[in-house]
């Protein structure tokens, strides 16, 4: 029987309560929401917090809405809620593409968007997605609220910019009218972590010239979950197969996968390139260039 080691448990009644508890207990306190990453890690003693702060009652941290030209996703939003959100799918189909392949429907009822991002697992799908989307993370702590661009959020495997006494409260994705987006993943079986995955968001101008592009990579060793070289290659180019192939080659060359039970380095490198091409192709097909 696997059970966690001893810990104390508090159910938070407000974000301020969370911050006060985190301040009092220091880095030995952990926030728990869905618990589908943390509780398994506690069973294995990979995590051994002294205090769990349960945020499941903080309904103000849940929900998906459009406010001031941004898609706002509360940190406590369950994966199933994001997958069911029509407004999320309408603006960014990449979110639904990814949610459909995250774990399984029962786990998605419990696991949260914020928990996944804060776990910062190199194989976690939404980290690459929100990086591609140039999302802004809203973090609250003892000194109030601050924002962190997603591309400065990840500090390495399982490390983020969220300080020990802070809590991620919201993710804000700037709306991009006409942009297309997509996420593609290769996994061994339903519900498994990615062998590799790629996401893309593409904005097109007249003549289908790429005006802006974001690429996210999952499980191929990029601590910041992106492929800047591939993005730089594409910007200003016509969105065609040659341009996608060049971007895919750049993503493949610059990623740093490691061999594990899901595959050897050369296979993952191949996937990073091919999946980047497929994500770009699908994203561009969903984009409108403003001329029709």
């Amino acid at each position: 029987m696997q059970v966690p080691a001893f810990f104390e448990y508090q159910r938070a009644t407000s974000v301020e309560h969370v911050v006060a508890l985190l301040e009092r207990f220091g880095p030995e306190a952990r926030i728990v929401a869905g618990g589908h990453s943390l509780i398994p890690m506690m069973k294995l003693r990979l995590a051994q917090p002294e205090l769990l702060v349960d945020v499941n009652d903080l309904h103000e941290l849940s929900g998906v809405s459009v406010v001031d030209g941004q898609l706002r996703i509360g940190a406590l939003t369950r994966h199933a809620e994001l997958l069911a959100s029509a407004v999320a799918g309408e603006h960014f189909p990449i979110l639904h593409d990814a949610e459909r392949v995250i774990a399984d429907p029962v786990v998605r009822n419990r696991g949260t968007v914020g928990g996944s991002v804060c776990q910062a697992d190199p194989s976690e799908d939404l980290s690459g997605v929100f990086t591609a989307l140039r999302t802004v993370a809203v973090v609250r702590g003892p000194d109030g609220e601050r924002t962190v661009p997603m591309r400065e959020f990840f500090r390495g495997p399982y490390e983020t910019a969220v300080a020990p006494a802070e809590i991620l409260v919201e993710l804000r994705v700037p709306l991009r009218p006409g942009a297309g987006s997509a996420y593609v993943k290769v996994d061994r079986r339903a519900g498994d972590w990615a062998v590799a995955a790629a996401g893309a968001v593409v904005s097109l101008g007249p003549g289908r010239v790429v005006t802006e592009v974001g690429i996210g990579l999952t499980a191929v060793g990029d601590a910041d979950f992106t492929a800047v070289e591939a993005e730089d290659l594409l910007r200003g180019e016509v969105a065609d197969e040659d341009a996608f192939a060049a971007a895919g080659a750049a993503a493949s060359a610059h990623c740093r996968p490691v061999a594990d039970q899901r595959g050897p380095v050369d296979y993952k490198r191949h996937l990073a390139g091919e999946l980047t091409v497929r994500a770009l192709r699908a994203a561009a097909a969903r984009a409108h260039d403003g001329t029709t």
Partner: protein
Amino acid sequence: MGVTVNGVEHVREVEPRLLLVHLLRDELRLTGTHWGCDTSNCGACTVWMDGLPVKSCTVLAVMADGRSVRTVEDLEGPFGLDQIQTSFMDCHGLQCGFCTPGMLMTARKLLDDNPDPTDTEIREAISGQICRCTGYRNIVAAVRHAAVAEALGRGDT
């Protein structure tokens, strides 16, 4: 903590590290819920919490404080077994029976939300449940059978 399980309120003093599956099985003696992989992969421990299927090996019992839990024991009503249970029997939807409680709870929720699911939708719904007898074909057939039987019962044919 206080939790309503199958309509009955239970008050217990528990360690924070107690998992919901063990509260149900060991404290409340509701052993219909099975405890399988312990890693939220197999789905044998699936119960409903506040109306949604969850894997109770990855929920702390204290997280259910003030909430309502439904287990496989609650499927049977005053007039006998739930249709999903009858259909699993009729279609050989179980062999060893270990995954069955989780399959039943997920399938019941699917049919409540979507009374006429396709085979693809059924397979997607149970994709978080592992049947080591690999009896998936009959499980999918059982869920379809229940959907048809319930549609006939409602008269919407």
